[in-house]
C-alpha cells in the first residue's frame, strides 16, 4: 500500500477497488471542454462548455444539437470561459439558474456571476449579480465553482489571476477569495468582513490560489473546498468564515520554474489545509456522495483531477482525511468535474476538445 502525506500525517492510499466495483458508461460525447453539470428535476442535464455554451442533455444521454440561447457574453481564452451551472434551491418554482463565467477581455477580465430563468427549453430574464474586482490581465485562475448554504446564501469561489498572487492577502479586493452572497446577489448581513472598511463585504475567506471544487456537507455542517497549488501544494481546506488560508505566504508547493514561492509551509494565524497533494494532482470538481448505488461510499468526498487523470475518494473521520483511493484512471482522461446524480451514480466530465459525460454505475 502506498502512503500519502498530509500535514505530517500519513494518509493511506488504498490500492485497487477495496470498497466498490463499478462500470464506466459513456453517456454523451462531443462536448467541447465541458466544465460543470447540473441535474434537472425531469431527469435531463445541463452542461456548460468552457467556450461559452450551455448544452441540454436528455435523460438517455443524447445531446441536443443547439446550445441554449441567452447565456451571458463570455470571455473565452485559455482557462477563461463559461464555468459552473447551478440550480436555485427553489428551481421548481422560480426556474432560476446560476452561471459563473469570465467576463472582459485579455487585458481586463475577472469572474462574474449571473442568474437567468430556464423554462425547460430556453433562457430568459438574465441578470448579472456579481463581478469580482479588480479586473485583471491574463486568462488564468478564475475559481468559478459555487455551493449553496442552508441559509439560502451561495458561496462563489475565485482565483488569484496567477500574476496577482500577493493580492490573495488583500481583503480590499476579491482576488484569491471566496465570496458569499444572497440568492439575489446582495451581501448577507452576517458576512465576516462586513463592517471592515478596508475589506470587501462579499468576502467569506481569503488567501486562496485557484479554488476549483466546493462542497457543503450538511450532515457535518462543513464547507470544504479544493484549490490548485503551484507545483505541488494542491489543497483540501475546511472553510471557516473570515479565515485566511495563507496563499502565497504559505504553501507546500513551489513555482512551475522550481523557484520557492515562500519558505513557509505554515504560519501563525493562517489556516493550514486538511490535506495537501504534493506532487500535484490538479484537483477540479468535488462531490459529496449520498446515494443508494454505492453504499460503501456514503459521506465520502470525491475529487476529480486534471493532471492526475483520476478521481480521489477521500474517507473522513472526525474531521480528518484518513484514507484516499485512486479511481477511474482507466479513463486515461483529464477529469474536470465529478457529480452525484439523483440516481446515486457518479457522473464525470472529461476535459477535452471532444469531451464526454461518463456515468459510473455498480458493476452488477
Amino acid at each position: 500500500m502506498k502512503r500519502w502525506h498530509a500535514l505530517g500525517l500519513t494518509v493511506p492510499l488504498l490500492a485497487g477497488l477495496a470498497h466498490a466495483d463499478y462500470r464506466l458508461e459513456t453517456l454523451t460525447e462531443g462536448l467541447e471542454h465541458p466544465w460543470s453539470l447540473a441535474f434537472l428535476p425531469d431527469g435531463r442535464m445541463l452542461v456548460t462548455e468552457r467556450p461559452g455554451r450551455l448544452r441540454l442533455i436528455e435523460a438517455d444521454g443524447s445531446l441536443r444539437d443547439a446550445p441554449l440561447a441567452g447565456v451571458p457574453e463570455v470571455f473565452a481564452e485559455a482557462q477563461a470561459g463559461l464555468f459552473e451551472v447551478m440550480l436555485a434551491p427553489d428551481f421548481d418554482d422560480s426556474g432560476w439558474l446560476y452561471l459563473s463565467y469570465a467576463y472582459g477581455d485579455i487585458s481586463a477580465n475577472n469572474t462574474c456571476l449571473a442568474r437567468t430563468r430556464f423554462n425547460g427549453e430556453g433562457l430568459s430574464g438574465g441578470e448579472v449579480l456579481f463581478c469580482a474586482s479588480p479586473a485583471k490581465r491574463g486568462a488564468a485562475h478564475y475559481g468559478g465553482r459555487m455551493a449553496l448554504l442552508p441559509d439560502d446564501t451561495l458561496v462563489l469561489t475565485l482565483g488569484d489571476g496567477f500574476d496577482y498572487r500577493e493580492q490573495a492577502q488583500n481583503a480590499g479586493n476579491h482576488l484569491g477569495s471566496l465570496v458569499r452572497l444572497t440568492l439575489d446577489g446582495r451581501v448577507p448581513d452576517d458576512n465576516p468582513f462586513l463592517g471592515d472598511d478596508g475589506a470587501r463585504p462579499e468576502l467569506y475567506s481569503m488567501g486562496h490560489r485557484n479554488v476549483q471544487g466546493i462542497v457543503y456537507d450538511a450532515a457535518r455542517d462543513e464547507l470544504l473546498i479544493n484549490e490548485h497549488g503551484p507545483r505541488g501544494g494542491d489543497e483540501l481546506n475546511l472553510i471557516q468564515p473570515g479565515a485566511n488560508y495563507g496563499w502565497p505566504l504559505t504553501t507546500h508547493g513551489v513555482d512551475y520554474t522550481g523557484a520557492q514561492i515562500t519558505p513557509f509551509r505554515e504560519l501563525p494565524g493562517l489556516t493550514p489545509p486538511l490535506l495537501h497533494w504534493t506532487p500535484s494532482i490538479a484537483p477540479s470538481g468535488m462531490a459529496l456522495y449520498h446515494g443508494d448505488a454505492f453504499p460503501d461510499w456514503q459521506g465520502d468526498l470525491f475529487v476529480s483531477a486534471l493532471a492526475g487523470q483520476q478521481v480521489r475518494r477521500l474517507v473522513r473521520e472526525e474531521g480528518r482525511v484518513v484514507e484516499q483511493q485512486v479511481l477511474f484512471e482507466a479513463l486515461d482522461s483529464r477529469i474536470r468535474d465529478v457529480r452525484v446524480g439523483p440516481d446515486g451514480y457518479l457522473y464525470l466530465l472529461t476535459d477535452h476538445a471532444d469531451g464526454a459525460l461518463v456515468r459510473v454505475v455498480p458493476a452488477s
Partner: protein
Amino acid sequence: MMARGKAALLGFLLAVLVTTLSGSLIQTQFNLAALTALGAEISLATRLTTTAQDLVGFAPLYASLVAVTLTVALPLAALSRRWLPLPAGLLYASAAALGLWLAFMVVDALAPMPTLIAATRSLTGTLCMLVGAALGGVLYACCVGRRL
C-alpha cells in the same frame, strides 16, 4: 584560431553562468520582498536557505533559457559589429540583455501562465534580471579579447 575558439567557448560558459546565478539570486530576493511586503518576517538564515534552494531548484531551468538566448544573441552581436561601431562590451551586454528580454516575452507568450518567472512581473524585476545578462555579455567580450 583554436585559441580564439576556446576563448569564445569560455566566454560563453562564463556569460551563461553569471547570467544564471545573478538571475537566480535576484528573483529570490524579489519573491521574498513580496512576502515581506505582506508582513512576513524573513530571517537572514531563511533568506540564505531560500536563495540556496532556488540555486538548486530554479537555476537549472533558467540556465537552459539563458543558454539558448545567448547562443543566438552573442553571435548576432558579433555580426552586428560590422555595422555598429560600438565598443564590444556595450554591444555584447546589450545583445545579452535584449535577447533575454525577448526570451521572457516569448516564454510568456508560449507558456500557459501569463508570466512564467514571477520576478519579471514588474519592470523593476525584469530590468534587474537583464542587468545580470548584461554583465554576462561584458564578461564574454572580455574573454574574446575585444576592446571594451
